[in-house]
């Protein structure tokens, strides 16, 4: 049994088109799964559905999300919130907007421990200091008292990582955590996430559009197109190819600076037509 099991999850815009089409995926304890797709493929929506932060205009049509065997839909809203708070954490995309600008950093790390999990303030404080040290932040005590605007983007992303691991969650959802950063900082942050994940043996669902990043951090990946899982495979097998035509085309479109003759092939129209047909057939099967 995997820690996270998503089964046939279908979402749609209220009275509108589908966003996700019977998505199934699982993440084991200690596994890093990449969730890849172009913008609009619905990759962020899976994380939002798990966390219960879907926009109001989007509704769950069908499907099941199991966390450690518990079906989240069977829980009351209150209990569900508690379970998510205790077991799942999010590393968001933009470190500049992910920390509350009017609050000091310290309470933003400890508030979950104190308010939701009932730790004592001193214990939470000690835990936060320990974690900031773990993510290589110099002088953690000073940083705890700082306001977010006093810290750099890379520093803030480290704090968010520390905050995510604070309550020893079983699952972390990382939603494009390095897209807003410069490549040199991205490298440090990806390494940090990878190390922390291995050390804490956490399940990690890593949402990204960058196949380069996937190859560095994920053991397995799911490729999405129009909310449908096109391919679900092992990372090594994926990059060794040949898998699904669409994912291969995506791989070819990704620039590779080491190859001087890299021809940057756009995704060919026939591949898009084929994958569109697949989606249309799926919709017909549901009687759309």
């Amino acid at each position, binding site marked *: 049994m995997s820690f996270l099991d998503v089964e046939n999850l279908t979402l749609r815009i209220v009275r509108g088109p589908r966003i996700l089409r019977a998505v199934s995926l699982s993440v084991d304890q200690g596994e890093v799964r990449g969730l890849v797709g172009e913008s609009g493929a619905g990759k962020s929506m899976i994380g939002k559905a798990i*966390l*219960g*932060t879907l926009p*109001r*205009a989007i509704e769950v049509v069908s499907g099941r999300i199991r966390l450690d065997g518990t079906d989240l839909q069977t829980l009351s809203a*209150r209990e569900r*919130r*508690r379970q*998510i*708070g*205790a077991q*799942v*954490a*999010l590393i*968001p*995309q*933009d470190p500049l*907007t*992910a*920390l*509350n*600008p*009017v*609050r000091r950093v310290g309470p*933003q790390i400890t*508030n*979950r421990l104190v*308010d*939701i999990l009932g730790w004592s303030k001193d214990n939470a404080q000690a835990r936060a200091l320990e974690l900031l040290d773990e993510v290589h932040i110099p002088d953690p005590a000073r940083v705890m008292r700082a*306001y977010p*605007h*006093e810290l750099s983007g890379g520093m803030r992303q480290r704090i*968010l990582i520390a*905050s995510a691991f604070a309550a020893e969650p079983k699952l972390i959802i990382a939603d494009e955590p390095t897209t807003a950063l410069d490549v040199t900082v991205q490298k440090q942050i990806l390494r940090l996430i990878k190390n922390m994940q291995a050390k804490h043996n956490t399940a990690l669902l890593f949402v990204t559009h960058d196949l380069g990043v996937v190859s560095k951090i994920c053991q397995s990946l799911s490729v999405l197109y129009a909310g449908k899982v096109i391919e679900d495979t092992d990372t090594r097998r994926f990059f060794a190819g040949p898998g699904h035509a669409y994912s291969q085309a995506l791989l070819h479109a990704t620039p590779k600076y080491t190859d001087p003759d890299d021809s940057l092939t756009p995704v060919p129209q026939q591949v898009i037509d084929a994958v569109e047909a697949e989606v249309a057939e799926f919709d017909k099967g549901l009687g759309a």
Partner: protein
Amino acid sequence: MLLMRSILARLVATCVTLFGAAVIVFFVIRVVPGNPIAMMLPPGATEDDIARLQALYGLDKSIFEQFVIWLGGVVQGDFGTSISLRQPVLDLVLGRLPATLELSIMALVIAVIIGGAMALTGTLRRETRTEAAIDVTGGMALSVPDFLWGLVLILLFGVLWPVFHISGRVSPSLDFDFATQFYLFESVLRLRFDVWADLVSHMFMPALALAIPLAAIIAQLLKQSLKETMHLDYVTLARTKGYPEASVITREALPNAVLPTLTLIGVQFTFLIGGTVIIERLFSYEGLGNMAIDAVINRDLPLIQGIVILFALIFTVVNLVVDMTYAALNPRLRHA
């Protein structure tokens, strides 16, 4: 020292504004074609009488001379003597100020409560019929100015269902001796809650009329600001930590959403104070505004000048206070 600097800059700007206001009001009313002095005297007065009285009020000098003399007096706290009421302008104006301040602040409190509640409810129930209803109500409240709301309130709660007083500041039958002009404040301090209730009953209608448009603006701006904030990652993060929605809104979104709303509330509050002029007239409430209209009708130049300068002073002080509050609440300014 960003904060100190912005306060200093604001103080300089305040002085410029006040001086500009003084210049404009002084010269505009000097264009008045009628002769206020002639109106004060009995019909049989001679040219000589008029000249003597003019000299008494300093009206025989050149307009620039008059301005310098007047400005010199103002700096020393001497605003001259009212022509129609024959008392020092400063005493008259300060005597009426508390009434207007009490009314404005009560209106502000009502507006913040109603507007805040509407914004929070609208955010909590966003993209539902409740939010749509709040938008429509707010849109109407905003489109119609305080003067009309005042008239509507008079009809509804003064005539159709007379539960509030619609005229005056306090019932004469109470026969209560106030030691200060801050009636509301004083009645609480002296534990006379019957007097307090009577005052509130008088003030509530004009205050509500002033508050309705402001409440709608607060509701609109704060809700918009809240909804924008609700999309930010730190709010999402708080939600995933297990906080319930209402607590996410009040704990995480509100402190940030209030900041941009605050400056606009400041500007709008100055509009509200400006609105007291006509609302006081409408409800025969004895404040500065009511006195101002009488002063204009009586062509009481020193009194008009005094009142306008006082209003300008209130406006600039309110803006200053808002700016400082903003800076104090914003850690970016506090710790730069």
